């Protein structure tokens, strides 16, 4: 990737679309690999994207994932159209989850998603408004 290059990916993620769960993350990971991003950085970005994708599918009314990659960082923005997180502090607690039994049977809903995303990020921000939606922004730095 040359200095000026910037790659931007955009995926629509539909609510409860479990059949396609992981498609956006899988594609993102393949692009990062192709760009020659180090594998540990790629893996962290893949975890953030995958958890974000599952969150949108499980908890939201649908949304999108935008991934911006330049020579210094990967920025992952996950945005949904509601319903919003009533208590962000609670949602950030390991083990806290509002997921249904159906979701738990698939191996998710352990209350590790947001903490996982935060741990894999160098910068992490979450904004949520009840009734409007949630935006999670993660930045992962790419070392020289």
């Amino acid at each position: 990737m040359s200095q000026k290059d910037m790659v931007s990916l955009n995926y629509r993620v539909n609510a409860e679309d479990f059949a396609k769960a992981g498609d956006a993350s899988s594609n993102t990971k393949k692009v990062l690999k192709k760009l020659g991003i180090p594998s540990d950085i790629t893996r962290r970005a893949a975890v953030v994207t995958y958890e974000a994708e599952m969150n949108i599918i499980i908890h939201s009314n649908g949304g999108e994932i935008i991934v911006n990659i330049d020579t210094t960082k990967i920025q992952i923005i996950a945005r949904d159209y509601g319903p919003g997180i009533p208590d962000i502090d609670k949602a950030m607690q390991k083990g806290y989850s509002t997921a249904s039994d159906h979701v738990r049977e698939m191996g998710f809903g352990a209350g590790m998603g947001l903490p996982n995303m935060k741990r894999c990020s160098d910068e992490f921000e979450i904004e949520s408004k009840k009734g409007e939606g949630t935006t999670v922004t993660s930045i992962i730095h790419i070392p020289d």
Partner: protein
Amino acid sequence: MYLYEIRDILDAEVITGKSRMDREVDFAFGADLMSDVLAFVNERTVLLTGLTNPQVIRTAEMMDLAAIIYVRGKRPDAASLELAEENGMTIMCTPYTLYTTSGILYNAGLKGIDELGVIK
């Protein structure tokens, strides 16, 4: 430990990735909770699980895991199989339970991961 050694001591059937049995792994991790796999695991690891849906394959793909071993004689569903073949994921099935599978591998020298996450 090499995947072919794991195959032999677990009496496992190799479903996909027969040509990748010479890959080496350092750890095994047993879980049906994919969020925990995403939290604690690194790439030179085999995943032991009884969960058979496509999210298992996706999780393994995200984490660059070496192989998935289904325990208790479970087999991946059709969607999983398709995804695994698409992504070059190695899958084995063992008739042993999760506890017995873990014991056999541990006894043979394959350790578990450290208590804390290794991603960062």
